[in-house]
């Protein structure tokens, strides 16, 4: 059952991810990206991390991608015109990508040699309570640093917007 859902949503996420690159129109790409986020959320759910799954949908699919689509609609961006690609990209692009993936696989196998297959339903403690507890005990410093980072971003946005208003 879990294997079936994993295969299904892994397939959907890979197809959507390829579609993000292939689509000519930005709105189609953005919607494919939502498909990727949604299927990732389903995988988190299958792994037992239900809080992360919902946060994934609320934050990425619900907030960030809405902003993306909002900006695309506001700028009324049309279909992208494909420029002529250089011969290096045309010839070497795909082989290089396969090589990069191979290298990544090799190193992850090297660094984590004893890691087995992921078992679905083994992991407990992905609920809101456990995530919150972990955030405010073990990971308190990264959490606070992230909030400061976001604060800096907000201040930067306000500064940029104010310049335009004057």
């Amino acid at each position, binding site marked *: 059952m879990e294997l079936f859902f994993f295969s299904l949503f892994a397939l959907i996420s890979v197809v959507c991810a390829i579609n993000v690159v292939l689509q000519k129109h930005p*709105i189609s790409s953005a*919607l494919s990206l*939502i498909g990727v986020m949604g299927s990732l959320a389903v995988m988190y759910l299958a792994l037992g991390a*239900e*809080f992360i799954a*919902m*946060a994934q*949908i*609320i934050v990425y*699919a*619900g*907030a960030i991608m*809405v*902003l993306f*689509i*909002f900006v695309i*609609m*506001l700028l*009324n961006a049309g279909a992208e015109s494909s420029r002529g690609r250089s011969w290096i990209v045309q010839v070497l692009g795909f082989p290089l990508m396969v090589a990069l993936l191979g290298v990544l696989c090799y190193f992850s196998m090297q660094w984590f040699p004893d890691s087995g297959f992921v078992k679905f339903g083994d992991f407990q403690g992905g*609920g*809101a309570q456990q995530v919150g507890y972990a955030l405010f005990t073990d990971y308190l410093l990264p959490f606070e640093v992230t909030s400061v980072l976001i604060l800096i971003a907000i201040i930067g946005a306000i500064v940029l917007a104010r310049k335009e208003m004057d």
Partner: protein
Amino acid sequence: MLAFLIITAVKLAIIAGVFMTTLAYLQWVERKVIAHVQVRMGPSRVGPHGLLQPLADVIKLITKEGVLPPHVNKFFYLLAPFLAVFMALISISIIPFGTSITIPAFTIGSTVFGPYQTMMELADLNIGVLFILAISSLGVYGIALAGWSSNNKYALLGGLRSSAQMISYELPMSLAIAAPLLSAGTLSLRGISDSQAGYYLGFIPHWAIFQMPFPQIFSFILFMIAAFAETNRIPFDLPEAENELVAGFHVEYSSMTFASFFMAEYANMVTVCSVATLLFLGGWHPLFPASLGSNFVAPLILFIAGAVCIYHGLNPARPLDRITLPVFGVMFFALAGLMAIPQLVPILTPLFWFLAKVGFLLFVFIWIRATLPRFRYDQLMSFAWKFMFPAALINLLITGFLVAWFS
């Protein structure tokens, strides 16, 4: 396993059927209520008191020609209403309506089945509140895509307004939801409702809006205001403002695709009212304890409604009322009798209280539509960011502090 599948299928059929009928009749209720607020009659031609009007509307909308304008982006134009309806209808699957139902053991032939016990809901997620928030944040895509793919400037403006408005009001709504969660200590909707059982001093209900240490009445008001914006209802219906944008995001839609946006709006209304009931108004827990007679409220109200119907049927304002009103009266009496059967009281009374609260909130939605004018767009945005957001934040802060202090 088989029993579980059958019970779930039956529950699914009941909930889907009742929900769809409710959506169709909500339109009738809305038109009737607004008409009476404005001293008109409302729909009255199709069937007694216009009661068959929703049926006529559905037949009209299905049989009308669905026009596909030549200038639209076809794929997204057809995807948008589907997305809107899907996101609106899926939330009802995790709303609990009442306590559990027990089906006693029975025998068919020589095999004994049961007894079965089932909860009055489709699924009890332990992250129910987050699920509702996630689905409601995805609901904006239907409207935004409809506005964009129509390739029409009014529709595009409607879609833009809607996405900006829903992002802005999602923040105060989430913060307003977070406050009662602090005292409930769970994210499951059933758990939240159960945490509000019981009474202070024997008669003040333990609902979140009365709950100590800090009554959540402010969260409730903030949530309801944000809910109006999330469902695009007056006074926040800027995405479909008729006198500015013709019809806003659905200006290019016709027939069932047009109707599906309305279905989504009404479904969102029902969902939001159910969530407000579960989070703030104690779900299916009655206003006063059973020792003071809260079990008799349902039959009494239905009996009075039946008596009023029969009285007006005996003194009819219109000739037809002589037949229709007594029939309604008898139906109300039958319902009152059903509510008073002792075996059914533990099932029907919580259901009655839940539906009564949801119905009242839906009435408030319609009432406000009949009363208030529309906001201006800049007022809408500054209201969200300069009043709602700080107010919700302060409310959450005080609640968190007091919950930590008293626990």
